[in-house]
């Protein structure tokens, strides 16, 4: 059996629905149609009444999920694209994220965001929004990079009592495959050493992990051993694992697909610089997308976000210092 990242997400939802009667799925076209990406394929048929088509009303979709959560359900919301979650932003950051803190009543909703660039998708179907959600207290932000994590972290997201923003990368949907579903998993909040090395640490998450791994492979032929840290969740952010890696390598490059102002890469660099300055043999570096909307044309798109090529160039520069 072989399974894609997307199929793992579908399987995780099927299992969540099967194991827990409190789980429901709500989103546009998720019912009989099975979702824009088919992440809920056949689920409406298998679990009648629990996989519900929603109107194009992101605010009300999230609001209703919050209400259902107050009532003891475990709703999974599918945003058709991460980009449209901004229409439901208020409910996510002001209602869901504050509920427990204000009232001690938890808000166990999972909001699935199909995110990240695929060429040809343009400015409004390509965004990476993990940064803005991570900024708000009260939210957990997951960014799985592997099929196994897509599966186990989504199950964990549903089980967690807090609102979870589940960022699933659209490029990985079809490009990643695994032989089987995991039976156990590292808990959320723990980063993973995706590849061990001693010369340079590349910290990445989601699709960028695979670009970083390609770079590590390439630079091996030049005699460098690169360590790749997969953050898995950007909030909580596993500073300990990052710091321990930098202690081994003395060099840090942090890569993210979202925009350069602030964000996950800035946060990682800031934490290492403030808490682990003495561990660094060279100034830390960060790579992000360019500070423009995400372009449509593949020529522009490929140059907009970090790629194995631009990461390799940055890594070489850092290794020379």
């Amino acid at each position: 059996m072989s399974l894609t990242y997307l199929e793992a997400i579908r399987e995780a939802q099927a299992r969540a629905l099967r194991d827990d009667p409190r789980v429901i799925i709500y989103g546009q076209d998720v019912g009989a149609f099975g979702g824009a990406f088919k992440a809920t394929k056949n689920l409406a048929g298998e679990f009648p009444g629990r996989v519900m088509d929603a109107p194009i009303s992101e605010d009300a979709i999230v609001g209703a999920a919050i209400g259902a959560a107050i009532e003891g359900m475990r709703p999974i919301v599918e945003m058709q694209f991460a980009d449209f979650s901004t229409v439901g932003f208020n409910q996510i950051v002001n209602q869901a994220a504050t509920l427990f803190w204000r009232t001690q009543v938890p808000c166990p909703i999972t909001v699935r965001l199909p995110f990240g660039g695929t060429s040809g998708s343009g400015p409004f179907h390509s965004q990476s929004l993990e940064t803005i959600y991570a900024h708000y207290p009260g939210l957990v932000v997951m960014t799985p990079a592997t099929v196994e994590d897509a599966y186990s972290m989504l199950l964990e997201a549903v089980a967690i009592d807090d609102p979870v923003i589940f960022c699933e990368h659209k490029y990985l949907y079809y490009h990643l495959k695994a032989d089987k579903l995991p039976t156990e998993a590292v808990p959320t909040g723990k980063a993973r050493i995706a590849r061990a090395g001693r010369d340079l640490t590349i910290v990445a998450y989601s699709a960028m992990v695979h670009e970083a791994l390609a770079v590590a492979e390439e630079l091996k032929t030049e005699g460098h051993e690169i360590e790749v840290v997969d953050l898995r969740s950007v909030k909580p952010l596993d500073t300990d694992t990052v710091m321990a890696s930098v202690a081994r390598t003395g060099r840090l490059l942090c890569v993210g697909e979202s925009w350069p102002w602030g964000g996950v890469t800035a946060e990682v660099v800031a934490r290492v610089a403030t808490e682990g300055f003495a561990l660094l043999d060279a100034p830390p570096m960060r790579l992000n997308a360019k500070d423009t909307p995400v372009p449509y044309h593949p020529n522009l798109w490929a140059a907009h976000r970090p790629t194995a090529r631009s990461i390799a160039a940055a890594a070489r520069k850092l290794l020379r210092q």
Partner: protein
Amino acid sequence: MVQAADSVAVRFRPVAAGTAVFSELCTSAFRWMLLARLLDEKFASLYRAGKIHGGVFLGRGQEALSVATALALRPGDVFAPLIRDAAGRLAFGDTALDAARTYLGSALGPMRGRDGNVHRGKPREGLLPMISHLGAMISVVNGILLARRLKGIQGTVGAASIGEGATSTGAFHEALNQAAIEKLPLVLVVANNHYAYSTPTSRQFACDSLVDKAAGYGVAGHRVDGTDLEACLKTLQHAADQARAGRGPQLVVAKLLRLCGHGEHDDAGYIDPKLKTSPVGRDCLKVAEEFLLQQRWADAATIAAWRKEKTHEVEEAVTAAQREPTPDPYEEDWTALSSGQLREGNE
């Protein structure tokens, strides 16, 4: 507490105009209105004395509509009040003490000093704690109603309050449309008090009456004189009954006037004096009092005794809240997550 006894006794019996039970409902409603008015006035005076952090927002002039909304509900129902709902909150089960605690920042209140003034509630008891963002509570009520349906629980009604200003939000539109699609037992109560802060209705909507919107959403619409307690009780009871009977969302639009500033910081100098002297500017508490007297459901002495009793209740609540501890920053856990294992350290 006296309050609980007051409402529950009357709330469940079927009500028809002119019956003894309706007289009980009216007097009960009046007593809640009186308590709300006196509590509001107390908060206003505490505000003027500098004893309250942050703003004070009153429901003066809107008590009849607010109490009627709550009294149309039963235990197990859901209520999402807004800033002008002092009366409805109390009738639904909120207490003068919790109101005072939230305004005065008691650590023992439902919000423990983390949120203040009208931002209080107990979601598990069906009383939703409003966030400031107007329109946002309606879909949350929808979600609770949807979940009840999924769980096979029948007969729940959810009521949400909204001002005419907030009918202009996308959230209002999305939520009412959502409720209509799902045919949810939602009673959406619009208090058209003619001003959203300083903005008159002419800058808010262009339809003749907000109730016209009901047809557009495919829901039932009701209009009511928000200054008239009797009319409010009957209309809201009818709307809740319709919702409970499975006839889908009910949009109730009441006309009235806010008889105070937007908050106590606001002198409301923008309110058209002609409106104040028009029927819409009547004080619903006075109208209700006159109605009770005229029906002989209460006499002046009884009403004076109620006023005394409620004044005492307010004083007791405020005094108790003032004696309670305030939140201690060193005792705070400073985390917004309930999952301990996912908490990040604070600097």
